[in-house]
């Protein structure tokens, strides 16, 4: 693991932000030149997948699964991500709305693992009375 982690050290050449800007190019000089944007400080799905692989190899499979879901969620814009979380809170969404959320994750964002996770939640919520009453 010592030759992979930390990525900042061992993947310095290939590590990129969500914007595609190499981590090595996130500098005060670029900031001063007005070149940096918020996306330059956002983690890319690839980096999260790399961290997930590291966590899995080190014996942390649940953390790895979380980081894979996170990799998928990098594609979701901030405001929608907040809404998705809100939908998953108890009593907020009907069963159908939860299934729609799962479908949107899968179809719009290619978030297969997260979509399945939401489907699983939908089934549990239904059986445990945690869904919103159907209007």
């Amino acid at each position, binding site marked *: *693991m*010592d030759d992979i*982690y*930390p*990525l*900042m050290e061992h*993947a310095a050449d290939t*590590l990129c932000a969500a914007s595609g800007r190499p*981590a090595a190019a*996130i*500098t*005060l000089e670029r*900031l001063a030149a007005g070149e*940096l*944007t*918020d996306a*330059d*400080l*956002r*983690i*890319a799905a690839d*980096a*999260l997948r*790399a*961290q997930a692989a*590291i*966590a899995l190899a*080190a*014996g*942390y*499979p*649940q*953390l*790895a*699964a*979380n*980081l894979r*879901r*996170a990799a*998928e*969620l*990098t594609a*979701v814009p*901030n405001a929608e*991500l907040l809404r*998705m*979380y809100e939908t*998953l*809170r*108890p*009593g907020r969404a009907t069963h159908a709305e939860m299934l729609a959320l799962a479908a949107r994750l899968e179809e719009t964002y290619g978030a297969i693992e*997260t979509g399945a*996770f*939401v489907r*699983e*939640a939908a089934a*549990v*919520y239904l059986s*445990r009375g*945690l869904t919103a009453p159907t209007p």
Partner: protein
Amino acid sequence: MKRESEMSAENKSRRFAVLAERDINKETFVEPWPEAGLIVADSPYDPRPSLRIEAGRVVEMDGKARADFDSLDLFIADHALDLSVAAEAMATPSLQIAHMLTDINVPQTAVRRLACGCTPAKLVEIIRHMNVLEMMIGLAKMRVRRTPANQAHVTNWKEHPALLAADAAEAALRGFAEVETTVRVARNAPFNALAVLVGTQTGRGGVLTQCAVEESLGLRLAMKGLTTYAETLSVYGTERAFVDGDDTPWSKAFLAAAYASRGVKVRFTSGTGSEALMGHAERCSMLYLEARCLLVTKGAGSQGVQNGSISCIALPESLPGGVRAVLAENLLASMIGLECASGNDALASHSTMRKSAKLMLQFIPGTDFICSGYSAVPKRDNLFGGGNFDAEDFDDWNVLQRDMQVDGGVLPATEEAVLAVRERAARAIQAVYAGLGLPPITDAEVAAAITAHSSDDMPDRDAVADLAAADRFLASDAGMLTVAEALRRAGFVDIAANILEMGRQRVAGDYLQPAAIFTSPAGAEGSRPLRVLSAINDPNDYAGPGTGYRLEGTRWEALQAIRQAQSPRHFVAPHVGPSSPRLVELGLARPSTRAEIIVAVGPAFNTALTRTIAGLEHEAVLAAILSGVADEGLTARIVKVYRSSDLAAIGYAGAELSGSGIAIGLQSRGTAVIHKRGLARLNNLELFPQSPSLTLETYRAIGRNAARYAKGVPPAPVGVKIDNWARLRLIVKTALLHRRETDEIADKPPQELWFDWEPD
């Protein structure tokens, strides 16, 4: 036994009246009541451990069939348990796993492998076999990160940005690896997070920061780059408590992934007592419910947990075994591979003795974060409800580390360094406010923040204007980059670079791994590059003496260098002045048969030392003793004993020479004894060991009494002020003065001294 109320007034014990006033008796103590969830461990209603797996799926867990599972059971069964090892783990006797926890020959990984296959009831059953000492050994081994650390709370009642920045900078300087803030008024959240970000990165680059607020708002702050971790993702051990907390295991897990998707470290929060407090304990013990919380946390993919009862701490502490159970929950978290920020945060006791004793259970073994919030501000400014340890305890904490050679994660700091870093942070946040067009921070506010102890020392701000600006700031695109750029433009280049580096680290995500912190030297300068330490590159490898984390080398030197520590080399100097020319050594002292008193002095008397520990000139002490002897109509001869610096030996040698058989032994530091020929050396007539309290009047009384013994007249009691603390205060000086006297020992018989002195 009669009840207290039935006792008559004359039957009241004065001792019990004093005990009733003690701090410990401000606490509430209750007997267990399982039906109300008021039992810390082993409720008769706790389930027995069991697990049945069919076709790769859990069909029964802890005595419950899958059809009867609630949402937590389902989540634990399907996400938390490692089914590849579960059968083996459940078949291993719990006592055997308890043994493995304390056996230094069993590596951490072997215990963790089995623990990850244990159901909640099984985990609790393992702990049932362990006392606190065994649990501490287990914790030292199971802690995730090898290097222990600590977290600070920085808040203030006025939510003053300059004070927040200054206190955050001081906390960073003092070595805290994380700083958590929160709000009094929720709308202030973005500004509080901003001030703590700027402050910490002034004190030391790489300190992780968070702002504890409602979940959605917390995520928004993280998205803006104002925080780098989130901790208050609370989970509960029953479904009803969970839902009252407005979440489910799935929504919490989604939130954790959402944070991670923005490169933000996440830690869940749980702790004994929360379910009972929320009325949903379902007759189960606090520890069993906490085991469920921990498995939900694990299943959700959180890298760690803040547990140890946290804000509920007084509830388990009201019950028998409460503090043990809190240690047990820390151990359980570590066993299953969760980073553990181990409580010691919320106000837990009125009694400093009880607080400190409880702390030792985490402090000595070391945890990933000893406190999940050491209040780096005064109690009243702590918006988490008052810290158990706060800014007023910094020195105590540093001394405890120094006493035990234990790394509690808090560096000593000098007043000069603290003032410098507070000024820099206050000026930096002033510059950020100016650069972003926020309501200005005046020079007077900056000046107040530098020297302030609490928000009482701070001027009031226009709260309405600040809140309106905070709303606009939250809604705007401004974030970490804007802040870094404002700092750079104002000339705070190093702080800007530190903040940008936190953004760059976010891109790598190395600190999303278990128990990650950044280490870097103190100060904004030279903080980069940051070095991440986590379970991946700093796994705890404790395997008994000589292994694992050891406080040694430069870190140990830094922790022992408290500002109060002084060189003992000049302790003796105030006790060495010019020798009195009125005291002259004549030659060999001979025995006599006259009715006299001998004053036998130590080898350093009036030469290598000239003043007693109380600062009295030797000459004056001698004059006082001789005056006392003269008061009784006798005379005294003075001899200097060279062969010993021991008081009994000096007095004994004097008595051997004395015509009356009575001698006063006097060490150069002032300790005195009245000795008599024929007594055993270590016996005496009177001993005056409290030399710091002896005055010239006492020495005169000692002289009088010695003469009365010689005359066969009953002695009068010598009044000596009793000061029990003198020994504590002066023991180093006592040792050094005695050492100086011992250095003067020479192989020659007692010598007679001539003292040019006449009684008044």
